[in-house]
């Protein structure tokens, strides 16, 4: 019983400490967006694919890129951000993994000849309409970058979401093997486009995230206020009720464990 009590108290104290630590951190906030709404399905690519979109701005301190792709069980997605030719070399130019290499090749094929300033890779198994790819942050913004991405090994169609645009500013993509890979573009190649690269009918929605400067503590009141909206019985009481319910559930559970281990 004594050991159970000690473990319980130590565990709950550790939980409280972890809570304080987490709430002292800052949530990721939107550092920038390309202003495109992911309202239209621009293309759907089976298996492997890649794409590049120029005329993007990578905000300073970006820690992740949200790319509007859609899947029920998405594959690993690699991103490489290439600066314009005279841009700043940041994260180096060597590819760390097969996926990253594909994204780098995609960047090269798309004519984005500057150095790679940032790259990252998502975990596989993502679902829904965005995939978030973490990046190593740069301490300053880089304008006019080309964001390239690549994925492979998906056994379903991966959709690119965005909005229609003029062809000259549209994103490019390739189905099948990632663009720039030794065997060229899509299986059999895509008509009318060297290497299987073709223009999308629009631009893909992209968002850039960075670590926020305000802690969760300082956001507590606004978060609690928002929790109370869109409810049957609106009000900040919702947040207070959740806190009370969880506290009482934890207290009851702890008491029960101590009682039963006697």
């Amino acid at each position: 019983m004594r050991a159970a009590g000690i473990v319980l108290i130590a565990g709950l104290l550790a939980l409280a400490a972890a809570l304080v630590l987490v709430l002292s951190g800052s949530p990721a906030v939107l550092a920038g967006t390309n202003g495109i709404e992911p309202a239209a399905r621009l293309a759907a690519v089976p298996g492997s694919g890649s794409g590049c979109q120029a005329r993007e701005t990578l905000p300073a301190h970006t820690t992740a890129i949200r790319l509007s792709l859609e899947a029920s069980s998405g594959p690993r997605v690699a991103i490489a951000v290439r600066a314009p030719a005279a841009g700043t070399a940041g994260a180096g130019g060597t590819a760390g993994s097969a996926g990253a290499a594909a994204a780098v090749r995609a960047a090269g094929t798309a004519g984005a000849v500057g150095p790679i300033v940032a790259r990252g890779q998502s975990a596989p198994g993502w679902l829904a309409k965005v995939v978030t790819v973490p990046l190593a942050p740069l301490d300053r913004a880089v304008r006019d970058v080309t964001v390239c991405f690549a994925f492979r090994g998906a056994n379903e169609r991966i959709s690119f979401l965005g909005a229609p645009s003029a062809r000259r500013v549209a994103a490019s993509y390739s189905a099948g093997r990632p663009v720039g890979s030794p065997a060229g573009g899509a299986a059999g190649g895509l008509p009318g486009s060297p290497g299987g690269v073709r223009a999308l009918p629009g631009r893909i929605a992209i968002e850039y995230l960075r670590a926020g400067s305000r802690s969760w503590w300082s956001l507590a009141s606004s978060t609690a206020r928002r929790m109370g909206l869109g409810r049957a019985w609106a009000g900040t009481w919702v947040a207070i009720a959740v806190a009370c319910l969880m506290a009482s559930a934890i207290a009851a559970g702890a008491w029960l464990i101590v009682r039963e281990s006697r």
Partner: protein
Amino acid sequence: MSARRRTGGRARPATARPATARPGAGRAGAGPPGAGRAGAGRVGVATRDVARRVRQALARVPTAAWLCALVACVNAVSWSLVTPPFQVPDEQAHFAYVEELARTQRLPSSSTQDYAPDEVLALEELEVGRVSFQPEHGTIASRAQQRKLARDIARAVSAFGSSRGVGAAGDAASEPPLYYALEAIPYELGAGGGVLDQLALMRLLSAVFAGLTALFAFLFVREALPASRVSWTVAGLAVAVMPALGSISGAVNPEAMLCAVAAALFYCLARAFRRGLTRRGALAIGALTAVGFLTKLNFLGLAPGVALGLALLSGRMGREAGARHAVRVLAPGLALAASPVCVYVAINVLSHHHTLGFSSGALAATYKRSLAGEASYIWQLYLPRLPGMGVDFGDISPLRDLWFRGLVGEYGFEDTFLPRWVDTVAAVAVAAILALAARAAFVRARALARRAGELAVYAAMAVGLLVLVGASSYLSFPAEAAGFPEPRYVLPLVALLAAALALAVRGAGRRWGAAAGALIVVLFIAHDVFSQLQVIARYYG
């Protein structure tokens, strides 16, 4: 505690008590003049008898089990407040089903997503379509939006009045009606306040099912692993604060009720294997099976395991008390279990619909495809691909990326997730728990071997459900690699998780068992707390 009540697994003949011993028995032969009164009296006595037995049965449930149920209820209510309206998979469709059932007293006839006008209004004003699947969008954020929402919903309530519009039930249309019929009660109670009031009350009913799930998980472990008292509480509490269960039971979703029904079935089967099958036990299993069929189509996956359990139990009874006695005990339960299916088929046949209603289409679609391909797909959905199998999931590991990661931390429309490093921490915890459970199983290997039949029944229920989920997912393959499988579909097996946790407590040994149990409960509590915080951050941060 219950070990003391152990009966050695001997079945007591259901007819052991003479009929005349029952109050009111023997009046059946009363002459015509008194027949009505005698009949009414018999019914009254029988009702009182049943009520007394129920009271006695409830009084035998340990306080710890009730507390686990209470904790589960409270946790699910908390989840119902944390989760924004309609931000759980298919909640819109489940709400629409209840709405149609309550307004027309008829089952849904269309599976389109043309919901009733008041629901559509709420969905639009809450920006549900914009928020779901897109974690970059939170819920409504201004008081002006809230005022407009409240005003429009109030206007809709007064405008629709008694001639409220009726819509279709979306994806839920093919589901059986029992859960929705129960949800019609809170729906009607909240009718004066509009859609959001109704939804909030309906979610509270789902939370009650979370309590029942934890209660029966506790009781199942007490029957299946009676030696360690603290392990029952650890198992019950872990289930009670399990975030996946809280999330789904804090929403309008028949999965909440199915979890409770499945946990109750596991308990009844464990009890029957331990104490022998009585007529009352068979009736309980039959009634729960019927309720399961009427709750959600996924119950079909559990049914073969239940049938196997009844077959093994009746075989054992036949050997001990004779085949005729076994049939007498089993027949009413079987008839009760099969009745919903028979009635459903009869209604469909008489109304010139497909024999199995909406399900017929899915079955027909299955038959048109390769059986070997389907078997390979289902295998790969849960297990590593074998040589010679086609690649159905690319570089994704379904076990890791869909099931494990999903159960560890994906909520809402699976667009809300814990950071990936949590998976690693969870994997370490799961490995430790499995190691302790394996140790307990190894130490008691002989005792477990004697219970091979019982274990086969639980395995059959689990495999049946997994195969059903896989077969359903295969319908949308290859357009979607894994369009259907969601971790919530395996929640009806939560009683088995409870048993594994109880085994882990025992595996830690007599000295450290309680401490290991306390650690497991703390881990589950931490998981729950941070999961709710993640949902709060996603929608309101």
